[in-house]
């Protein structure tokens, strides 16, 4: 079933190209890693600072969390690479279903 493994394992791929690609990716990872640490610090500061009300802090931290998840998925779990369309589709569908559920619980049951 050789035709069913599109990536990896093939000895004839261009080593030079791969090396360049990896270096580039490494750069991205380091940048996002630094940004993730920065965002985490921002979140802690926001929570610790007396001047903000809870109505600002909670949504703000939630937004930071979403950004972090996106970084994680795209830069560390390689969702931006080709061949990840199906996992992406299912991830988003799952997130959508979860979102609908939470919205419904918030509005229909507890409001």
């Amino acid at each position, binding site marked *: 079933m050789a035709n069913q493994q599109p990536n990896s394992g093939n000895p004839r791929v261009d080593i030079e190209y791969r090396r360049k690609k990896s270096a580039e990716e490494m750069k991205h990872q380091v940048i996002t890693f630094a940004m993730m640490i920065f965002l985490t610090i921002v979140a802690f500061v926001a929570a610790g600072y007396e001047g903000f009300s809870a109505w600002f802090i909670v949504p703000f931290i939630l937004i930071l969390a979403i950004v972090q998840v996106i970084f994680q998925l795209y830069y560390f779990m390689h969702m931006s690479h080709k061949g990840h369309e199906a996992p992406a589709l299912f991830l988003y569908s799952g997130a959508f279903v979860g979102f609908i559920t939470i919205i419904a619980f918030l509005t*229909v049951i507890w409001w």
Partner: protein
Amino acid sequence: MSTLAQKKGFGAVLWDYLTTVDHKKIAILYLIAGGFFFLLGGLEAMFIRIQLAVPNNDFVSAGLYNEILTMHGTTMIFLAAMPLIFAFMNAVMPLQIGARDVAFPFLNSLGFWLFFFGGVFLNLSWFLGGAPDAGWTSYASLSLASEGHGIDFYALGLQISGAGTLIGGINFLVTIINMRAPGMTYMRMPMFTWATFVTSALILFAFPALTVGLFLLVFDRMFGSNFFDASMGGNTIIWEHFFWIFGHPEVYILVLPAFGIFSEIFSIFSRKRLFGYSSMVFATVLIGFLGFMVWAHHMFTTGMGPIANAIFAVATMAIAVPTGIKIFNWLFTMWGGSITFTTPMLWAVAFIPSFVAGGVTGVMLASAAQDYQYHDSYFVVAHFHYVIVGGVVFALFAGAHLYWPKMFGTMLNELLGKITFVLFFIGFHLTFFIQHFLGLWGMPRRIFTFLPGQGLETANMVSTVGAFFMAAAVIIMLINIVITSVKNEKVGNDPWGDGRTLEWAIPSPPPFYNFKQLPLVRGLDAYWLEKMEGKKGMSPAEPLGDIHMPNNSFIPFVISFGLFVAAFGAMYRADHSWGIPVLIVGLLITLGSMFIRSVKDDHGFHIHKEDLEDNNDKGVKA
């Protein structure tokens, strides 16, 4: 490789099936286990109808009636319809996409055994102090008040078998995404494969809601939490939401594969390409999507308020549109085709008016204001039996006749098949049509008896008579199966003569590696295309080479058995001192066997090229 032909001893065959990871054998296991539970659920249905045949009947007591009713619904949905659908998915889908097996054969077997042990656990409740009695929906206010262990059997049993279903669904998804034969693009996949794909996605997203709901229920009942107890700050409506967020997609999980089977049947026996293939795919995906937006139509009367009711009413009615697209496509597939009325085709043709009737009552129920009249009456019972029996059960009968030769290599008797159909068709409408009117006349659902002189006697009697027709039909089908197996007349690759998709291009039953060489797919209805060009079979897409196959394994059985033991421990923890140790032992069995699976290398084996060449004379070709 047919086990029948090899004349193995009974013990060897049994061991083979206990350890098999072959999708075709797992399909047979699903068929046998699902068929058994179907008979059990049918027996419970007969008891229900006997009890309701005449007013003031005392055939069963009120409490026992509740147990029988609950177990009928639960068994039919979770232990009969689902596994029978899984049987056909396992048997046919890998062949339709030109794969040698599913993506994870080991998990496939694990999925089956989890379902099986969950089902056995649930049914053991009959012998261990009483079955669950809060309805298949197990609404929390009822189920928390239910005494004894019935509801615990329900929650734990469904938890175990639900895990199996989830595993199965994920496995099918990965298989369809990754293992299609060369040339088999998404838009060349047979309709049944598409249905399997969308259904599996629904399973993936819907079952977690049930899992969460069941966990909360177990915690409320066994560990003193109060998620659903309003007097302690919980909310009983939360269970209803969780249940229906799972439950409505579940009805589409059942009916989409049925649509898939019928799509195959209409095009095979009309000798025409499926009309509007791409709109069929679109409609299937759209139904899957909308299926998640409508769950609260089961809760119109819980006081969600006019806005929520209106939103869910409109969303529900929208599903009628893609469903209508499908109905018209089937009709146009038959239009101008050269139709042969084989047994599967009879079921398919009868399905259309029966299912449409169920859809029409569905739209009636969907208008929230009207639903206040219909809700919890026999009208609802009539609705869901029209869609579930007229849609799903008809498809299971049709599929059994259609795919029997592919699964077992023998043809079910057509005459007996047609008698089964006629009896069942008459019995079905006799039983359930009148129930619409029973509902409108005011008969509530889930009551164990009714009083004389309220105008309900005749209609209930008619309904019971219909049930006996259906029972007779099932018995004739069983006789048919026995006769066919005893005669054991083997058939060729394409016994219906008009097979269109890849499964009909290989022997019946297929060799255990399915395709000697993976086939090259050149369009929709791949095998039909080749036949029309005068070729005998598919052209291979690869040179003949060694085939890698997985080894059999007993571990899935043991993993599932461990959970079965642990469930007993969890349930009896509060009553007996041995509860906790049994719980621990069960979990140790499960985790230990998972550990063994992880550390022991199992690379499978190869079938060598030379051995494959020997078989050429038997016509085993790609």
